[in-house]
């Protein structure tokens, strides 16, 4: 068989099963589950253990461990009283470089790290100590970027698959993660351990039911909901299943085996294996968008970058059906063109303030990545909407002075109407367009204002 993921594993990263299994019956069961999974892994004679650890956060893109023999004595910064973990691992440095190259080809910011003393995270250390105690199989570890969301994480997973193919490596892909991640916020006796809440318990069971049925992609599709329900928001979203599903091929055709499940200091810990199988439950339709190349923010180092247009020369296309697409306008967030010409009229799709160069929002977004409300400048957003509108109208051969009718959507009428109206007046007072202004609950991106326009088409 050519290179690729031959098996997937989900394992917990907290140190208790490694360091204190004898103190709690559940921790011991998880340790034994690790040992059983190890047998399953070794039986398929993989070339590589590819680990994505949620306990290795990165900020500058994605980091990939490339020290061939990292050696240290690790102590967990929280559960330090459980003891020290001396380790010496065997890493596949060549694969790490290949993974880094593959990630960059998909427009991710990635780098390898190979420094003596680099702090390998507790989750990776626990997984390698319990799954690969004799270093029988070389490993690779990739970080979990704290800002990355679904698109970036899916692309990171696909890059791992690219590297496996390119290097002809038969790999076991391992996601180090808890299910529910709510820890007790006080110290407890080992005998008192339990899943933090009944709700967490129920969701964990549901996730394990899916995984037991081999429905990996379904869990990946549900990741946002799972995060909302049972995850403390230490990071953006519940990412490991996006990565794992992307490495494994984004489907539900697996034989799933749930080795065991137990609480660790309140969080949900499970050891699960997924083996590709022709008799899986199959796929129907998935809601989340798929993505091949990462196209997110990457120009933040350039001062004033947000003032520029999209990189490369602007292009405009209008087909025989009058469908208009303009490269200098913000990319649509769904399956629709920027505008459509029908007879003498031009119908412009709802358009907001996003900067076409980098999708940033002039005046700031209305909420951050965690969903928390942000202060923003409605006047700056309104000006940006009108600039984008001019771009689309110009691309279609029309112009602002030919606008006939405007529908305006504001997410906060009380706060924003006055500022919006002032900027609108600066540009439209002599146009004579009819206008309707509506308050709505939200817009698809974190913007406060959007225009829907009908204009007279150009000649």
């Amino acid at each position, binding site marked *: 068989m050519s290179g690729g993921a031959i098996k997937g594993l989900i394992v917990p990263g907290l140190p208790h099963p490694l360091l204190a299994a004898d103190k709690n019956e559940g921790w011991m069961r998880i340790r034994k589950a690790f040992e059983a999974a190890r047998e399953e892994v070794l039986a398929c004679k993989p070339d590589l253990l590819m680990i994505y650890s949620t306990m*290795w*956060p*990165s*900020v*500058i*893109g994605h980091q990939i461990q490339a020290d061939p023999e990292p050696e240290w*004595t*690790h*102590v967990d*910064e*929280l559960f*330090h*009283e459980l*003891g*020290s973990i001396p380790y010496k691992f065997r890493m596949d440095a060549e694969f790490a470089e290949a993974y880094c190259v593959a990630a960059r080809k998909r427009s991710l*910011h990635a780098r390898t*790290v190979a*420094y*003596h*003393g*680099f*702090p390998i*995270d507790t989750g990776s250390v626990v997984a390698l100590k319990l799954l690969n105690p004799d270093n029988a199989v070389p490993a690779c570890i990739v970080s979990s*970027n704290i*800002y990355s969301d679904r698109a970036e994480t899916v692309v990171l997973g696909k890059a791992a698959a690219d590297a496996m193919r390119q290097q002809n490596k038969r790999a076991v892909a391992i996601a180090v993660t808890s299910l529910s991640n*709510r*820890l*007790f*916020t*006080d*110290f407890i006796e080992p005998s008192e351990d339990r899943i933090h809440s009944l709700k967490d318990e129920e969701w964990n069971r549901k996730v394990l039911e899916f995984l037991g049925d081999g429905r990996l992609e379904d869990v990946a599709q549900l990741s946002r909901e799972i995060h909302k329900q049972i995850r*403390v*928001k*230490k990071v953006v979203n519940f990412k490991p299943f996006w990565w794992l599903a992307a490495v494994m091929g984004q489907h539900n055709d697996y034989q799933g085996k749930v080795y065991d499940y137990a609480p660790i200091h309140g969080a949900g810990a499970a050891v699960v294996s997924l083996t590709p199988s022709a008799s899986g439950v199959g796929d129907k339709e998935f809601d989340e968008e798929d993505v091949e190349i990462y196209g997110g*923010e*990457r120009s*933040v*180092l*350039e*001062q004033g970058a947000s003032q520029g247009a999209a990189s490369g020369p602007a292009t405009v296309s209008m087909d025989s059906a009058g469908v208009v697409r303009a490269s200098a306008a913000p990319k649509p967030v769904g399956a629709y063109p920027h505008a459509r010409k029908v007879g003498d009229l031009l119908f412009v799709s709802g358009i907001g303030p996003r900067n076409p160069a980098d999708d940033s929002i002039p005046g*700031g977004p209305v909420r*951050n990545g965690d969903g*928390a*409300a*942000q*202060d923003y400048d409605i006047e700056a957003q309104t000006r940006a909407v009108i600039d984008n509108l001019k771009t689309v109208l110009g691309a279609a051969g029309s112009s602002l002075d030919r606008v006939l009718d405007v529908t305006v959507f504001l997410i906060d009428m009380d706060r924003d109407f006055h500022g919006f109206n002032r900027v609108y007046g600066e540009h439209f007072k002599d146009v004579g367009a009819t206008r309707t202004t509506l308050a709505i609950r939200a817009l698809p991106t974190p913007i406060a204002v959007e225009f829907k326009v009908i204009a007279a088409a150009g000649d």
Partner: protein
Amino acid sequence: MSKDGSIVAGILAPHPPHLAYAENPPQNEPKAECGWETLRWAYERMRGDLEQRDFDVLVVLSPHWQTYIGNHFLGVPHFKSLSVDPVFPNLFRFHYDMKVDVELAEAIHDEAKAAGLITRMMRNPDFRVDYGTIVSCHMTRPEWDIPIVSISSCRSRSYYSVEVMQEQALELGRATRVAIEKSGRRALLLASNSLSHRHFTEEPEVPEDMTHEHIYHHGQYLWDMRMIDLMRTGRTQEMIDLMPEFIEQSSSEADSGSLTWMMGAMGFPAYPGEIYGYGTIIGTGNAVVGWYPERAAS
């Protein structure tokens, strides 16, 4: 019972590893050409002011020792090891050798515990000291000739509101002050945090290339200036009252509780803080600021 210990000064002492990197100390493996001078010179001026003062211990609260269960305290008398920054390993691989004032650490631990906070002493000698503690202490006292007390940042903010976490940090500050007074120590407090903290997700090819260094966005700058203005005009109670909003609006690293802890320990100084300097590091806002209790009387 009081033994006349005191807080000699409180310093807002940001810890991005770039500062230690650009200083080129012998302990750090990577070497820099230059970089972030406004902040490094700010530290230098601050050190000059400290030369006129005697102190026995540095007490630092670091956001990069993150504990989800309460605040932990280094409880081993001596640490010697290598610290590699997990985010910027290209900049910070620092060979540290430090002494810990375990007696004072235990005293603060006990006071905090008695006040109802969750606390734990860290007794594992293999433990690696976090880079936030190291950078703040190094930039304040590069001689490393004074013992430290290092306190972890309780990250239960993931579980509780910002307001609850701020209250806990204030209580920890009060416990710190009481313990210092009882100990007879002359202590220098270090709040090891940046102000606004949204940072770039890539770095220039030459990390110290200052043509790329600027604040992440104008809103962060406005917030930083608002907070600094409160510091320089002695309105620290107002600053702490604003802290939850500041944290939300600027992704501030003050969510670690370190600045709030220090203000709580110092009883909300109503005299001007000395603004030694402000600068950005990979998009984050950082200030070196000193509060000197003797100025309360002047």
